[in-house]
């Protein structure tokens, strides 16, 4: 074997190897090529085993060259490997493409009833002002529902509530959450009070899109030694701003409730039309949101607070009505009908 022959062989091994690598297209081909060209019986490896048969003076040169060829083949393999893998990844990714416009797989979703949602919003606003929730019973006595609230029997104001009476004398379904005023006062006197009184109320009323026999009410009550009509205004206006928008306009209009004096209705500028007049506000530009007033001295006294020393205010609202106005709900009967097609929109 001549000297040149050996180097030519090495060159040929390299060229053949590189040429074969060009044909490799996938991971399996790479493995086969590695076995054929860099494996134990690959030509370049056999060259190493032939080294001892070569003349001594040639060995270093040939060995060095053989190493270079091996390294070149390894480098080529690595490079080709990258290319093949990139190509196969491309192909894989292309084959895995999905139609992203197909509907997603829905998680199992439960929801809270819209009533619970609006109540929580109302509570949160008042809780920030230091009010705490106090609940009381649905089935009440005439005494708590009316008499202690300055509504004696046959008082003209009784006309304001169409009442469900039970077959037990003096027992009725509360017509408002106001009996809670007496309960919370009697539980708290003489401490100051800031309470939220939520609850289901009942009225003897023909059911329609606007009226229900059962409905929620949320009442707020503040009792203390230094509470004024100005504070009432500040509190209900603050609530309106938090609930309906920071810039919403409000007005208090004189009204009458037997358990407050002075009494007022709070109107909020219609947030649907911005006060221009629309079907929601029946063209008036205003939405009636809550009734309120300074606590009547008789009620304070019935709750255990001396009206000469203490004063207070109360305000009551219908959360369904607020929810209806905010979410444009047409019919109050949706609330207790519990049709999932309604509930699932919240």
């Amino acid at each position, binding site marked *: 074997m001549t000297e040149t022959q050996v180097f030519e062989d090495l060159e040929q091994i390299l060229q053949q190897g590189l040429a074969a690598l060009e044909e490799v297209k996938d991971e399996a081909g790479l493995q086969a090529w590695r076995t054929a060209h860099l494996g134990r019986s690959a030509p370049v490896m056999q060259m190493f085993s032939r080294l001892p048969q070569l003349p001594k003076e040639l060995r270093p040169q040939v060995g060095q060259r053989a190493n270079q060829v091996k390294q070149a083949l390894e480098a080529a393999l690595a490079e080709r490997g990258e290319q093949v893998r990139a190509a196969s990844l491309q192909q894989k990714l292309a084959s895995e493409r999905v139609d992203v416009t197909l*509907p997603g*797989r*829905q*998680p*199992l*979703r*439960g*929801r*809270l*009833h819209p009533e*619970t949602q609006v109540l929580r919003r109302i509570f949160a606003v008042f809780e920030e002002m*230091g009010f*705490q929730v106090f609940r009381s*019973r*649905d*089935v009440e006595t005439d005494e708590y529902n009316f008499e202690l609230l300055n509504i004696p029997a046959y008082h*003209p104001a009784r006309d304001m509530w169409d009442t*469900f*009476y*039970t077959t*037990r004398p003096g*027992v009725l*379904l509360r017509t408002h959450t106001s009996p809670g005023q007496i309960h919370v006062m009697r539980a708290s006197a003489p*401490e*100051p*009070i800031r309470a939220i009184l939520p609850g*289901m109320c009942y009225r*003897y009323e023909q*059911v329609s899109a606007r009226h229900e*026999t059962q409905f929620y009410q949320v009442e707020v009550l503040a009792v*203390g*030694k230094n*509470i*004024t*009509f*100005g*504070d009432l*205004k*500040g509190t209900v206006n603050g609530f309106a701003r938090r609930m309906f928008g920071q810039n919403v306009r409000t*007005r208090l*209009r004189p*009204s*009458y409730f037997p358990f407050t*004096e*002075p009494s007022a209705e709070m109107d909020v500028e219609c947030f649907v039309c911005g*006060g221009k007049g629309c079907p929601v506000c029946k*063209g*008036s*530009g205003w939405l009636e949101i809550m009734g309120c007033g*300074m606590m009547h*001295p008789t009620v304070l006294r019935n709750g255990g607070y001396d*009206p000469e020393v203490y*004063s207070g205010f109360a305000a009551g609202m219908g959360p369904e009505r607020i929810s209806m106005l905010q979410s444009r709900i047409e019919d109050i009967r949706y*609330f*207790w009908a*519990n*049709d*999932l097609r309604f*509930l*699932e929109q919240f």
Partner: protein
Amino acid sequence: MKIVYSWLQDYIDLSGYSLVELARILTMTGLEVEEVQVIGLPMPANGPLEFKFTGLSWDPEKIIVARIDEVMPHPNADRLVLCRLNDGQEEHIVLTGAPNLYEYKGIGPLPTPLKVAWAKEGAQIYDGHQPGQVLTTLKRAKIRGVESYSMVCSEKELGISDEHEGIMILDPEAPTGAPLRDVLGDAVFEISILPNMIRNASVIGVARELSAVLNRPLRMPDTSFEAAGPAIDGMVSIQIVDPDLNPRFMVGLIQNTRPVPSPDKIQRRLTLAGMRPINSLVDATNYVMLETGEPLHAFDYDKLVERAGGKAPTIITRAAKPGEKLTTLDEVERELDPVMILVTDTAGPLSLAGVMGGLESEVTPETRNVLLEAASWNFVNVRRTMNQLRLNSEAGYRFSRGVHPELAPLALQLGLKRMQAWSGAGEIARGVVDNYPRPHVDPVVTLTPAEVARQLGVELPAEQIAGLLRSLDFEVSVEGGRLQVKAPPHRLDIGEGIVGKADLIEEIARLYGYDNIPETRLSDELPPARANRALEVEERIKDLLAGMGLQEVITYRLTTPEREARLRLAEEGPLEYIRLANPISPERVVMRRSLLASVMEVMERNARVTDRLALFEAGPVYLPVSGQDLPVEAETLAIAMCGRRYPEDWNQPVDARMDFFDLKGLLEALLEDLHIENVEFTPAADPTYHPGKCARLSAGDVVLGTFGELHPEIQRRYDLPSAPVLAAELDLSRLIELVPERFETRPVPVYPAVLEDLALVVDEDLPAAELERAIRQAGGPLLADVRLFDIYRGEQIGAGKKSMAYSLAYQAPDHTLNEKEAAQIRQRIIKRLEHTLGAKLRG
């Protein structure tokens, strides 16, 4: 209450204020205007319609006053006439079929021309031939060969009343050619009267409020008249049996009068105020009631004399006797009881005091002599009378809310004066008979500016406060910074002492203007912080359940025993309920005792809406307690589930139905998330549920409730798919009490666990919970986790046996367990289970 704009202006000058401004002022005074009906007057210009406006505006160019000079027959039609009409500029021939012109037909030029409302082509009016109020535009037409381009109008066509029998004939003084709206235009404010403002259920009452806020004088009507008749003394006497029922009774007498139609203006005002004009005598009583707020009652004096056997009648007011009867003027015979007050004479009942007159003594077309009553009555009795008889009247509306006795003289004078004036005949007897045994004492209240400031938050000087109150006719004196305030003699809503102060402060706030009181933030001491744990935990439970895919519902709390009985077997006895005395619907008669029954109805209602139903409700049920008036309101949690485990979807191939273990898993997760310990599920027998798929849930010795698959017989009663219905009803209060205030965590393990599977063959009826408990006990503290992953039954292991395969994790907190340690635990478990439960390791 309908307040007629033109009438209101009799008592106060309203010039310079538009209808909208007046409506706003009234509303902000507490007289909420619900609607403004215009009669001819212009509607407010475009823009936000602050108030609801209805009615018809008359075009000043197209609807004018015209003069009919001659009524001529129509050449081709008997029922039509042709009018020679002058609009002040030129003559027109106008066709009409109005029957009230027939009498003038063909008599030549009229000696006194008729003034009429004349609408020209293009005018907007109501269609007189259609029911209700349908707008139409007057068009040119040919009627029976005669060209018609205008018409003379009826009241209906102008929106004044429903009258369409004939055309409207105007006052002869009405200026020809003037826009009709300047002559007859009017408006009606529909005002909602608050229960404490009955003093304002009158035109003068509303005028007085306006006078106070506009600072313009109130013009009271002139009550003077010439009493040409004899003295009333000896012609009638009055006895009041109980001054508590009847504090005042006053009568006057007018003789030789007659009922005739009232003047047009009066009839129009009454119509607009919502009352039907009858005749001058009846109209006078109604008019004065609307004007002053004091209802009057007119008796036919001759009938009273006849009943008294020709002698001067004696009027006696008293409580009715049980079983006494009276036929009221609506021709209904009514049975009376002692709560009702009667006006009687020696022959028996005459009228139901304060509510309605009797038929026998009422004014008829033949009446010539009228005894006119002005009285005041105990409002509670009037109110109860109206409730018991289900009888409403304008008089009753006022008397049941309280009418001040000092209004009687004013109203009586005005009534007599108007009867005479409008009838054009009659002599009013001199004097009145006034029985007023217990004169009303108007309360006097002392008030300081500090007391006003304490409630309102604004400092007002004493003189300013006095001025505000005086504008509403309070008598006020100021001395040493204190106000002495006497309530005016027309209102009964001012109390004494501290209540009186509150009543006055309300009037001050109202007149000062709520808008003018500055808004402040609460600066009073905060209340002590108190937890409402029941609410907090309840809300947490709702969040957890919603997070697990359940929809919250809130149902009606009123139901029927029958609807709840669907969930119960017939053998169970009837339950006691809180029952309504006056249910409004047969579907809602009792307060519910079962929350699940309500939720099941929601399931049924939504069965066709979705293939997966999973609902819960948290709320009270009402359980009567013997010996107590009020029921226990037991907070309850109900859950119901039915249908697919996952909703049907294109990429959701599993069509599995929810079963017992879906509900159980949910309850396990709920209680675990609430950190409740010692939770136990034990087989339970409840006839509502499938006997083999029903469990009781408890924690320690507290039973929380029962759940399971509904019994097929129960499920059959509901219109639901055949898939199993899972249901639970738990005691929410107990559940909430079990939730610990806080809980402790365990450190995350540092050393790896040794994992191992163990299959045990046991008797078929060995409960899984018992087996697991035994494994855990035997495993001791190093057994970190036990998870069942398979149950196998088959020939390999023999009949009556099952193989339970568990995945176990052994773990020590302080080192990695070695093979030997793991094997020891394993051996301990196997040995113990063999010994106590007869379990065999599955080979």
